[in-house]
């Protein structure tokens, strides 16, 4: 696995990377315009069909779990302790009270994380890193800058692999991973010293290789992977523009009369995250347990 990119044949995959980048910007902007939990929830649900269309539902759900962790934390801790809250909604054991204003604040924040996360995951999973680089170049981003971005995508998995190799080699020489804190900090040296050296060596080699292929030559460069904005992209962009206009209209003229957010909605979304979180924990525990049972026979 070189990056999170999932090569699939779908409408979303065939969009131009620039369209998808604008899409991410659009989602970020929307999540700030719609600072109302109910509307954000609607928006989040509305994004899901795109994930289905891109055929990345399963990997999406796996990666969104981590963001859900944040959502659970924010909603619980802020709901109880954020000082802006005055109106109590309900109480749980030990007199901890969830308050309306804090819950609104927490929900807006966590939904925003989930919405932006969904867009980002969708973008990364459906866009080949090289396509993104060549699209950036078309936007007059300097070629070297696009390359820096691209190589960042590539070097992370490389370093991860090297780190694993170094760690195994040191483990084979029985680097002790237990012990006191000082001992553990000391143990980082045999891990990271070789890793740094390997990384520097690789980067050094890379620079030679690049020079051999005339990287610093001036003038226009062509790209192996061409991207093109087609009618599909225009449709998509128009759609985004329409939604954005509607959001702004909503924000400017209807916010006063619209009361979608209720105690029930807040409470249910809080419980919802708890339940999903609970399932994640149960799944994790069961998996650990199965590993033990499965190995026994």
């Amino acid at each position: 696995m070189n990056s999170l990119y999932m090569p699939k044949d779908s409408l979303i995959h065939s969009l131009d990377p620039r369209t998808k980048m604008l899409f991410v910007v659009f989602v970020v902007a929307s999540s700030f315009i719609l600072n109302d939990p109910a509307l954000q929830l609607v928006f989040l649900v509305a994004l899901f069909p795109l994930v289905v269309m891109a055929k990345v539902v399963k990997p999406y759900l796996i990666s969104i779990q981590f963001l859900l962790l944040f959502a659970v934390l924010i909603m619980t801790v802020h709901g109880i302790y954020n000082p802006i809250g005055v109106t109590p909604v309900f109480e749980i054991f030990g007199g901890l009270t969830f308050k309306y204003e804090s819950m609104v604040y927490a929900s807006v924040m966590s939904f925003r994380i989930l919405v932006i996360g969904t867009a980002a995951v969708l973008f990364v999973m459906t866009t080949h890193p090289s396509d993104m680089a060549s699209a950036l170049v078309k936007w007059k981003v300097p070629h070297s800058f696009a390359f820096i971005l691209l190589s960042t995508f590539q070097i992370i998995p490389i370093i991860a692999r090297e780190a694993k190799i170094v760690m195994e080699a040191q483990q084979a020489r029985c680097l002790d991973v237990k012990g006191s804190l000082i001992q553990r900090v000391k143990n980082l040296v045999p891990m990271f010293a070789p890793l740094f050296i390997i990384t520097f060596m690789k980067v050094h080699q890379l620079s030679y290789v690049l020079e051999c292929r005339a990287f610093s030559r001036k003038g226009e460069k062509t790209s192996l992977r061409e991207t093109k904005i087609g009618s599909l992209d225009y449709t998509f962009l128009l759609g985004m523009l329409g939604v954005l206009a509607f959001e702004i209209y909503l924000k400017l003229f209807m916010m006063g009369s619209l009361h979608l957010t209720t105690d029930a909605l807040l409470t249910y979304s809080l419980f919802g995250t708890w339940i999903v979180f609970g399932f994640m924990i149960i799944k994790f525990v069961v998996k650990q347990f199965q590993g033990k049972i499965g190995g026994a026979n």
Partner: protein
Amino acid sequence: MDITFKDVSYIYQANTPFEHRALSGVSFHIPSGSFVAVIGHTGSGKSTLLQHLNGLLRPTEGKVMIGDYQISAAEKTKDIKSLREKVGVVFQYPEHQLFEETVAKDIGFGPLNFNVEPKEIERRTGQAIKAVGLPEDLLQRSPFDLSGGQMRRVAIAGVLAMNPEVLVLDEPTAGLDPSGQREIMDMFSRQHKNNNLTTVLVTHSMEDALRYADHIIIMKDGEKYMEGAPLEVLVNKEELQRVQLDLPEVIQFLHQAEKQFGKAIPYRKQGIAQLAKELTAVVKGGESHG
């Protein structure tokens, strides 16, 4: 130490979209003191197999037994540290694991982790550096000042200094010059004989396998494909070609000679000079009769 694999399977990232079966149902037995070569195409599961030998990986199914140690999915191996002391692993490009300020300290890193006495470490360091054919005055230099080949030798010395009973080598000569490759392999062969080691060599070189090993395991797609003595396994051209492997050059040459002169010369690991003599006899004999 005896090494036994019993129906060992290993699955990377089980229960995820990236699930990948690297080993399936591999069984074999390596008696103590033998020199085994594991051969296979890239991605055939050699390296995964090797990582089971010192408990870096635990089999998803099945059992690995190394001497008295038992590694299986069900239970954590007790005393994995002492297992790792007894099984020395030289990984691919081992020079990448060097990190200490001086060569001596780096060689001593393994033994130090096993709580060996400083005096003893010093003795072993001296021994190990001599074994890999480096001068002792390198000991106080930084390992990063050395050439690639010297760094490789220092890293190997670091493994030898642990005084392992089992030596596991993952393509230890990859990227070295031909004479360096030969020297290092001869050194391992000497260590194997002198210290009564059990050696497992993962290699791409059919020549090395033929020259040094007394038992050969060929892997294919995570399964054991062939197993046996080198002179049984490495002469079977069709079977080997099915896994994209070639006959060793000597065997290829002898096959050709047989075709040309109509008389087979049996290969018994004789040297080049001896082979030349036998070949001359065949050629001359052929002429006098014809």
